[in-house]
């Protein structure tokens, strides 16, 4: 445990130099968006609705004893889209978000997210801007980012056709790469793809530059729109440095009806897995019905970016007080 030798768990884990780097990073981020004319916004951390994604554990609070549940936001996406629908124009936000049961070398249950939205951008144009931001913040990278389609990356780095492979073939591919197989995934094709990505594909991304992975399987669209084609793909991207996942972006889904059916599918998946039922965000759906302008948005994990900038391998080393000392 980093910092364990510093004489008592009241002390910060991150050293002063890293805390200064964090302050500098925030200042650089503010300068970047100010120069580009995006509006900085502030949306609530406590919300009546939750993220229904079965793989996100929303933390629960109450605004008063005995009062109705309020959920700590796992990202500011829904209220930011309500602002966009209300005519805010391009917006950005730097905030703390919360995800339960995520603790490890690269996870802290409360972490700092940078999220921004660009009207009229698609995911490719937004990837350009993420690359510009990273070039501004990180002068350690000489090589330009690599851009890879999801299917291309899986074919090149794991030797598998991600479009046609069924769960058993993905499982076999993981086993062929000498990764221990878990039990309990069954025929959950997306879970097998997630394991393939985390244990075979991403570890083969170059460590000396950023990798932009784009055009995800439609089953992993999350909040991205689907681009028709052969095959159709989700207009989603992720940013990695080596295997470290840094950011996730979408050419946003603007269709209220499609969004409602994705929420319903998530709620059904939660019920099937025996997870707690959560209230979907009706105010977001109302905003989409009233009209979300065509836009792309991205969320970037600031603590992980700071890990890279400060050369740290454990997220606790960039946090003043990680979960264990909070």
């Amino acid at each position, binding site marked *: 445990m980093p910092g364990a030798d510093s004489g008592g768990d009241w002390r910060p884990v991150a050293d002063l130099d890293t805390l200064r780097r964090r302050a500098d990073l925030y200042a650089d981020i503010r300068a970047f968006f100010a120069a580009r004319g995006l509006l900085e916004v502030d949306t609530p951390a406590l919300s009546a609705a939750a993220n229904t994604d079965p793989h996100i554990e929303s933390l629960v609070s109450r605004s008063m004893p005995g009062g109705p549940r309020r959920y700590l936001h796992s990202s500011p996406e829904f209220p930011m889209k309500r602002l966009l629908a209300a005519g805010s124009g391009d917006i950005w936000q730097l905030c703390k978000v919360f995800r339960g*049961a995520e*603790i*490890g070398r690269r996870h802290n249950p409360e972490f700092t997210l940078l999220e921004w939205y660009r009207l009229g951008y698609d995911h490719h144009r937004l990837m350009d801007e993420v690359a510009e931001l990273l070039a501004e913040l990180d002068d350690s990278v000489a090589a330009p980012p690599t851009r890879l389609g999801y299917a291309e990356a899986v074919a090149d780095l794991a030797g598998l056709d991600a479009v046609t492979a069924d769960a058993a073939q993905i499982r076999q591919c993981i086993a062929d790469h000498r*990764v221990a197989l878990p039990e*309990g995934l069954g025929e959950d094709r*997306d*879970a097998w793809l997630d394991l393939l990505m*985390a244990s075979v594909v991403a570890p083969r991304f170059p460590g000396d530059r950023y990798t932009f992975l784009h055009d995800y399987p439609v089953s992993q669209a999350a909040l991205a729109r689907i681009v028709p084609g052969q095959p159709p793909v989700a207009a989603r991207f992720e940013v990695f440095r080596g295997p470290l996942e840094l950011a996730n972006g979408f050419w946003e889904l603007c269709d209220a009806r499609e969004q409602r059916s994705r929420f319903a599918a998530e709620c059904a998946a939660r019920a099937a897995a025996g997870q707690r039922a959560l209230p979907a965000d009706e105010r977001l759906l109302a905003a989409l019905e009233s009209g979300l302008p065509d836009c792309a948005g991205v969320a970037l994990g600031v603590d992980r970016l700071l890990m890279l900038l400060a050369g740290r391998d454990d997220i606790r080393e960039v946090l003043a007080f990680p979960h264990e000392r909070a």
Partner: protein
Amino acid sequence: MASYSTNQFKGGLKIMIDGDPCTIAENEFVKPGKGQAFNRVKIRNLISGRVVERTFKSGDTVEAADVMDTEMQYLYSDGEMWHFMDQTSFEQIAAGDAAVSEAKQWLKEEDICQITLWNGEPIAVLPPNFVELKVVETDPGLRGDTAQGGTKPARLETGAVVKVPLFIEEGEVLKCDTRSGEYVSRVK
């Protein structure tokens, strides 16, 4: 039956894998921002000592292993079993060759050892970190050569063979580190 969720995984946790008691050596939480979370774990089998990798779907549960470490005094060996005594209850247990394993070459009567019990049965024995043992066999010492390099093997009363400086003679008592198997110093 007691069990642990992957959320409780951490180094040292004792769990059952394929019917054998194991200890978690390393636990890495792996999760894409959107998608299934996993725990990739390195596990040491407490009986065979082998380390294997396992992947768990996060949130799954694993049976707990009823394993505890306890301090006991080594009494004697009858050639087949090694006998230990709990110094508070005076209860005695006998450990077989597989449990005593590497430790047996360091076991001296009355020394306090750490015994790992699984369902009350000894599965592993750890000798004290430092032991003091008499040299029973080594080549004659070279007089005057007390400082400069060079080592030779010396057999100790418990059977262990350690490298010692050339000036060490039979009958001397040596302090040894059982973790590295190395000579530390002479005991006056």
